[in-house]
């Protein structure tokens, strides 16, 4: 499994990033405005409730009369009803924004992933991409919607309270709120401390995850080295560090919260003192005093949550950075506007304009190197006639896979060109090439779904009969019929319910159904029993018939039956010819073949060898 380091959080608020995100919120402008209005209403009513109490005290209790109490009760009930409706509206609107934004970003991200080049896939672990598309998007959507709720509510309420207080009694309001600047300073100080502490905790946490990973992966070795105790000691060091940092982080909150409460109570105390005196001097009413006391308590409520909201926004920002980096990554291989114009893109192809493909392939002076590596191919030239089958042999790293990757246009030559039927393939669309290309992998990949679904992947509008025919052609029909539900059998995630050999046969059937002009086979070395091996060999022969084909070959029988064998070494063709010619030459191929021959013989006796 791949683990990746928790990324450093950007400490600053990155405005350009949020501006970019704004684009994703725009479609939900309507909801955003509604949500803001509703939240302002919620905050406003929260400000009104204490006013109601004040009214009740001043007008009923102090005056000692009942008149209007029922009207008052009715109004109060109405407010409650409105507020309850507001709560529902806010949840629905925030929910629409959350789910909508998440849906949109995921779709956008997925689309981009479908177009990114293999150079991206080669260096990016699947786990990393998965995390971007799942938890990061989720966190971002949550925060945009619900963070917004908290912010607007807190802001409206604080401002509302301040305004009402100032309006009712300017002097008393100023006195009651005199602690606010102090609170602001303390908040800024503690927020920073808390955020920093949390960052440290997260970092140690990812180290602990790493340690667990290593502990489990290396458990066998640990046992044989009798290192259990040392490992545990090291691990305990980590968890102790985690404990210390977490408690420290918690301590800041533990100090900050009482501080807010106490500062708030000073406000309350001041309101009480001056307000109490004012009541006696009869400059304000009893109700007003009670109102001020409730307000001073209420005012500080949103402040307590400030640290939480702020840290949520920070981690949302980090999530946003990672997602945007995924969405903004540009595919390295793109079709030119002219090509797109006439042939369409992958999502919207125009097959009516596609020329027929014959299958002549030419590599002309092709140079290629991977991003950070040395030259893999240098002045590589190759001419293949339509219908020829080519076996590529050579050691790991010799450049066999690169040749195939270039042919499939998973990568493009750094210089030189690759011609298909005499035309540089960059002048045609990727979709055109790939639709005419069959590609069967070393390790066959199946999708969850039924056997039939998987074969149909080769040609989406294929009739059931075509599917059965394709399966029969590669000798897969027999074993499929033996499965519990035949073609309707679920293959499980990644085809996990089938054996490797069975998966291979299904992937051959899939390729046959697609009926490509050019066929690429990256042959598997994985072991299958002799009988299955024969069936697979037979299937390969059928698939190759009449198509231009490239095979990265490992099995002697496959190699032998190819029209042409290319021995590749250090990015060059060092031998070229058919089996009997190359054997006569007694060169590299001869040695390779004899070694391979021995290995295959041994394998037959010993089973898995060299794996």
């Amino acid at each position, binding site marked *: 499994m791949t*683990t990746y380091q928790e990324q450093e959080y950007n400490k600053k608020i990155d405005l350009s990033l949020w501006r970019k995100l704004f684009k994703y919120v725009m479609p939900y402008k309507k909801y955003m405005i509604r949500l803001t209005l509703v939240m302002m209403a919620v905050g406003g009513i929260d400000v009104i409730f204490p006013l109601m109490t004040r009214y009740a005290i001043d007008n009923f209790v102090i005056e000692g009369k009942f008149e209007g109490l029922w009207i008052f009760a009715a109004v109060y009930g109405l407010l409650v009803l409105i507020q309850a409706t507001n709560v529902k509206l806010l949840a629905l609107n925030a929910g629409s924004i959350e*789910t909508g934004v998440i849906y949109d970003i995921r779709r956008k991200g997925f689309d981009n992933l479908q177009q990114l080049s293999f150079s991206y896939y080669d260096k990016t672990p699947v786990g990393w991409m998965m995390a971007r598309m799942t938890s990061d998007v989720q966190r971002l959507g949550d925060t945009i919607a619900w963070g917004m709720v908290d912010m607007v509510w807190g802001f409206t309420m604080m401002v509302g309270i301040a305004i009402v207080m100032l309006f009712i009694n300017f002097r008393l309001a100023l006195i009651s709120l005199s602690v606010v600047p102090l609170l602001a300073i303390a908040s800024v100080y503690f927020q920073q401390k808390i955020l920093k502490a949390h960052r440290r905790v997260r970092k140690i946490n990812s180290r602990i995850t790493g340690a667990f990973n290593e502990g489990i992966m290396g458990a066998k070795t640990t046992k044989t080295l009798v290192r259990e105790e040392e490992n545990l000691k090291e691990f305990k060091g980590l968890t102790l560090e985690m404990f210390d940092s977490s408690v420290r982080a918690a301590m800041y909150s533990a100090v900050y*919260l009482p501080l807010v409460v106490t500062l708030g109570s000073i406000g309350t105390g001041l309101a009480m003192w001056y307000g109490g005196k004012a009541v006696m001097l009869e400059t304000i009413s009893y109700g007003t005093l009670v109102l001020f006391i409730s307000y001073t308590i209420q005012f500080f409520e949103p402040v307590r949550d400030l640290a939480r909201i702020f840290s949520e926004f920070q981690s949302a920002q980090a999530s946003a950075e990672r997602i945007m980096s995924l969405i903004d990554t540009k595919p390295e291989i793109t079709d030119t506007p002219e090509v797109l114009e006439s042939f369409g893109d992958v999502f919207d192809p125009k097959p009516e304009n596609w020329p027929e493909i014959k299958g002549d392939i030419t590599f002309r002076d092709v140079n290629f190197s991977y991003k950070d590596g040395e030259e893999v191919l240098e002045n590589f030239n190759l001419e293949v006639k339509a219908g020829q089958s080519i076996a590529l042999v050579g050691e790991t790293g010799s450049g066999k896979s690169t040749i195939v990757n270039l042919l499939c246009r998973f990568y493009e030559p750094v210089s030189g060109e690759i011609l298909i039927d005499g035309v540089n393939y960059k002048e045609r669309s990727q*979709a055109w090439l790939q639709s005419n290309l069959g590609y069967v992998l070393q390790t066959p990949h199946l999708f969850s779904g039924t056997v039939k679904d998987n074969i149909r992947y080769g040609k989406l509008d294929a009739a059931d009969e075509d599917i059965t025919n394709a399966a029969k052609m590669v000798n897969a029909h027999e074993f499929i019929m033996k499965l519990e539900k035949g073609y309707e059998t679920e293959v499980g995630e990644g085809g996990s319910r089938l054996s490797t050999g069975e998966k291979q046969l299904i992937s051959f059937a899939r390729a046959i159904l697609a009926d490509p002009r050019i066929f690429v086979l990256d042959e598997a070395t994985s072991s299958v029993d002799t009988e299955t091996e024969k069936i697979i060999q037979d299937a390969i022969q059928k698939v190759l018939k009449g198509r231009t084909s490239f095979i990265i070959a490992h099995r002697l029988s496959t190699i032998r039956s190819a029209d042409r064998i290319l021995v590749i070494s250090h990015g060059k063709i060092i031998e070229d010819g058919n089996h009997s010619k190359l054997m006569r030459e007694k060169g590299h191929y001869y040695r390779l073949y*004899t070694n391979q021959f021995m290995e295959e013989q041994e394998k037959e*006796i010993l089973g898995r060898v060299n794996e």
Partner: protein
Amino acid sequence: MNAPIWVMNIIESIGGQDTLRQNIWMCSIAVVLLSLINGIFTYYKGKWSAVASESIAQNMKDTLYDKLQNVRYDYYVKAETGDLIQRCTSDVDTVRRFLAIQLVEVGRAVFMLGMAIAIMFSLDVRMTLVSMSIIPGIFLFSTLYYMKVKESFLECDESEGQLTTVLQENLTGMRVVRAFARQPYERDKFDEVNRDFRGKVSNLISLLAWYWSFSDFLSMLQMGIVLVSGVYWTVSGHMTLGTLVVFTTYEGMLLWPVRLMGRILTDMGKTSVALGRIKEILDEPLDKDEKEGLKPEIQGNIEFQHVNFKYENGKEVLKDITFKVKKGQTVAILGPTGSGKSTLMHLLHRLYDYDSGSIKIDGIELRDIDKKWIREKIGIVLQEPFLYSKTIKENLKMAKKGVDEDRIYQSARIAHVHDVITSFEKGYDTLVGERGVTLSGGQKQRVAITRALIKDCPILIFDDSLSAVDTETDAAIRKALKERKKDVTTFIISHRINTLSEADMILVMEEGRIIEIGKHETLVNKPGLYRRIWEIQNTKEDDLTA
């Protein structure tokens, strides 16, 4: 406890007590002081709940780690790393969060509720009853509602699972997607699950919206009832203004924990699931000696007598294994996959225990020897050795405490890896793995061999651990071993005839039995597996082309 009871006093004093009326500041100070005391308690609450929950989490992680290192060997064979890590990290965190936040909150809520109710009753019984009139309803509603919403939560989880699967399969199968130019199809497929998930979550949120809205409605209604009836009774002279204010303030405290109920119920559900998953790991049996084992000096004479072994699933792996090895001998083992070669070696290392028969080391029954002691004395290099993400030197040093550098270099030379290591930019301080240099399979094997050599064991096992090393280096390593480690009893699992032929004894295994035993000269002259392999590896090249 916050200000209310003092608020009451102040209001009351305004109405009645002249002394306090002149000195309202005293009440203000009292409010602040009380709040300060409250603050101190809050601080300790925060601190202690953090200390308690964090130390429980720390303890859990330590215990889990310890457990995972010490479970029986076969556990690792079937273990799913990702799932285990999930249990050890996020599940523990779920428990920690519940302890840190909810549990303390529950305690506080219960305490506050108790205090508030007691004070309220002492002030006005009738008013208290009114204050609590709707609360049972809210309580019942919350509980019932969350029971119902649970299903919706589950649906969301499942839908999210589907989304993850489609995404995962798309990413891992990207080459297939591209090869068939199936991007539009994949996009539709993803859009379907993406849309479904969005729908399920929206559904959940609208259910929750109902819940929040209705429970808020009930709560606020309760507040209103208190206010209106309080006003009525105050005006009609049954109650003081102070009491009214106290009741309106306390009502909030009363309602808050009730509204929290639903949240706590869901969290509790999640926590008990997490605890269950953690417990599964902790319930695994340990790899420990039943009784105190012997710790004898080990010479290296080994005797297997009629040893049988089967896995827990009942599959017989070794049948009637009998052979005898003298100190300093080299034993080579050959056999097809699944013939039991590795298991035989694992028995010797006490990674598994044999079912019947006897294995004696220097005449002592292996079962009676302390597990860790015997593992210290037998060096084993696994076929796919694991290097820790530390420096090469640290990886080597862990074999033996306080080993000096010369010995490390010397052992690395025997394993033919010294030159490779020194060719790295940072030499022996090169970091292995994740963020460091990726070693090739052969290099890893040789580092692991070095590690085993440093240990200086009287018995060494190479479990096909030279397979990724080329033939010449293989031969050189064996030669060096023979010179330096004359007294060490060595087992080598291999399929290379060169390796096998030099051994003092060759065991050929098939289907859990020893089918041939003897020296190269003997085995090569009688028909059988050994001879067939020998023939293949010695086929004249001309025979092939002929």
